[in-house]
Each structure stands twice: as C-alpha cells, then as structure tokens.
C-alpha cells in the first residue's frame, strides 16, 4: 500500500468509528438533546473525514473531487439548520427535561413575548403604541 492508501484508510476508518460512536450514543443516551449531541458526530466530522479519504483515492478525477467537496459543503450548511429546528421543537414540545437546565434563554424569550416586550414577535397581542 502506498502513502495515499494509508492516509485514505486512516481517514475512512476514523470516520466510520465516529459513526459507530454515534450509533451507540443514539441507543444509550436518555433524552433528545443528548441523542442529538451523539448524532452530530457522523453528520459533520465523520462525513468530512470519510469524504476526505475518498477524495485522496479519487484525486486524478477533478470533477468527482469537486462534487464530493460540494457534498461536504451542503452538509456543513444544512446540518446546523436541521439540528436547530429539531432542538427548538424539542424545547417547545417539552420532550426534553427543561427543568434541569441551569440557563433557559428560550423560555425567558417566550415569557417576554407573552408579556409583550417584543411586539413584532407576538402575534397574539396588539403592538404597544409608540410614545
């Protein structure tokens, strides 16, 4: 095996081991946020490691390398958005233990909206007239 093969093998195996860690974490962690914490590993770092390993193998084929770079870029852009929506939905629907949080800024923001401190954010209340 040449040096390229060794580099590619190490990258692909470490990415696969991150995926395995995510699988164990998804199975054993008790609530949604902890499972998301485990599941983020193959979504970003594991996938980027595996893609880097594959790109080392495919390096004479420029178009395939660019396509794989775009796959990594899309995943970097979309994974935080999906995780943000998922975590916020978990917070709102109460499936996570919110009372164990030391600091809950989203709850504070919801209470402020309910009290009318953010007029444009609360459609239920009339906006306070400017003085």
């Amino acid at each position: 095996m040449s040096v390229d093969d060794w580099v590619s093998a190490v990258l692909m195996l470490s990415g696969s081991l991150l995926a395995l860690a995510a699988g164990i974490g998804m199975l054993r962690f008790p609530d949604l946020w902890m499972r998301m914490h485990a599941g983020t590993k193959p979504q970003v770092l594991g996938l980027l490691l595996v893609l880097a390993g594959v790109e080392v193998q495919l390096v004479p084929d420029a178009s395939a390398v660019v396509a794989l770079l775009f796959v990594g870029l899309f995943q970097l852009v979309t994974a935080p958005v999906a995780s943000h929506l998922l975590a916020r939905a978990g917070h709102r629907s109460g499936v996570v233990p919110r009372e164990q949080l030391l600091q809950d800024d989203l709850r504070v923001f919801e209470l402020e909206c309910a009290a009318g401190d953010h007029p444009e954010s609360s459609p239920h209340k009339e906006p306070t007239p400017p003085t």
Partner: protein
Amino acid sequence: MGLVTDIALGILLVAALLVVVRLVKGPTTLDRAAAADVFVAILLCGVAVLVARRGSTVFVPVLLALSLLGFASSVAVVRFVGREGPTGRSDDEVEEGSGS
C-alpha cells in the same frame, strides 16, 4: 485497499443498525426525526466508501441528492411535528396553560 473498505463498510453497517433500533424504539416523533437524520448521514458515509471501493464515480450524484434530500425531509418532519406538544395539545395551548 479492499480490506480497508470492507472493514469500514462493516462498521458503518453496525452503526446504521444501532440507529435503526432507535428509529423503531424512539419514544417521540422528534427522536425518530433525529435518528433519521443520523441514518442519512451514515448512508452518505457508506455510499462514499462504496465510491472508493469500486473506484468508479457512478454514485457521486447519489451522494449529492442524498445530502439535500435528508435536510428537506428532516426539516419537513420537524415543522410538521413542532406545533403540538407531547400530549397532542397545540403549542399555543401549552404556552397559555403554563404562562397563566
């Protein structure tokens, strides 16, 4: 090189099976959405390793399509589910009930 990709595919298969167990068990729909997200990521890793194993770039467009499809599906599920609480009440009722 074939041995390395075989080992990587085996590890990814075990990881995908563990995630599928969570996908089946998941007590709430949000847990299932998170598990589906991770499953798509592991599937992306598997297809990438398959590209390296076969040495052909036939499956590279599959990678591009999967990376966008996984995002769209998880966002759709979360937007659909996020409006109601665990008891089936809507979000507004939960806010009013806890706020008063």
